[in-house]
């Protein structure tokens, strides 16, 4: 109890500080310098209709590379120490219902297609690599739910992950030679604004990000799922 009182006092202190911050915030009427630049030049320089995508993949591409790296790290660490036994223990898992299995059989391909659609169109509409990747991973969850005994080939995910990661870095480095710098998207022509094949290498990068995120998340989920078997 004493502990909670201390925490309350602490949170009041912190809350007071936050109050000061919130109080100093009063919206904005116009875009600031950085945002204005993107609004004015983003479409022209990058060729992506979705400015968030333009920023995520190109202007702040290094961040994105960093964040897929974080997922990569997490997956690697989880794989390291959530390792299940080599032999797949055949404990009695209730097979899931016929209905679920059938539904999954129909839905999973659809979900995968949706995921792919989302990251292929990332430069045009909301969505992109992360979202698409996450959607693919949730498709996998459905698969795992419907067929709990199926051994998922995590090696496959690892390979996809490594390939897409490597390509990503490779494209980045190619930018140094072929264009203005690391991760410059103009190593391919920008194309016609607003079409699928536009915005230079950006869609390719986002596809790679999608594949990478999807495989990383899938790998992660598989690891967590496999630990169930040790139970």
């Amino acid at each position, binding site marked *: 109890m004493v502990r909670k009182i201390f925490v309350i006092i602490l949170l009041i202190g912190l809350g007071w500080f936050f109050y000061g911050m919130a109080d100093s915030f009063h919206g904005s009427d116009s875009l600031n310098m950085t945002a204005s630049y993107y609004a004015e030049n983003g479409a022209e320089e990058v060729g992506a209709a979705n400015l968030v*995508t333009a920023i995520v993949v190109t202007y702040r591409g290094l961040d994105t590379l960093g964040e897929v790296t974080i997922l990569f790290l997490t997956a690697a660490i989880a794989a390291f120490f959530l390792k299940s036994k080599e032999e797949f223990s055949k404990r009695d898992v209730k097979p899931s219902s016929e209905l679920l299995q059938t539904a999954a059989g129909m839905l999973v391909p659809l979900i995968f297609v949706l995921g792919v659609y989302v990251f292929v169109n990332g430069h045009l509409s909301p969505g992109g690599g992360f979202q698409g990747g996450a959607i693919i991973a949730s498709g996998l969850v459905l698969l795992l739910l419907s067929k709990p005994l199926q051994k998922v080939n995590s090696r496959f995910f690892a390979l996809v992950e490594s390939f897409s990661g490597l390509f990503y870095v490779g494209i980045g480095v190619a930018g140094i030679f072929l264009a203005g710098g690391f991760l410059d998207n103009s190593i391919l022509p920008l194309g016609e604004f607003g079409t699928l094949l536009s915005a230079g290498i950006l869609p390719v990068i986002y596809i790679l990000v999608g594949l990478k995120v999807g495989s990383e998340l899938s790998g992660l989920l598989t690891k967590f799922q496999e630990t169930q078997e040790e139970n």
Partner: protein
Amino acid sequence: MLSVIIIIALTILVLAAAILAVQTTNLVVAVISAGLVSLMASVGYLFLSAPDVAMTEAAIGSGLSTIIFFYVLNRVRGKDHG
């Protein structure tokens, strides 16, 4: 006007779900509440003209993390609570 009402409702719900998530002793309820917090936040992001964020938050924050939480709960379930 409608949006204002929705925002107010969302605000209240988000905070309530958050408090429930940290206060309840039932881990399943806690995980679901935390997922709801994310989900409602992602609805809120739509109102803030941030569809990309909304999608991501919905797919990752309320989707995948909740699934991982459940895997973990399943793993450690029933032996300890608190």
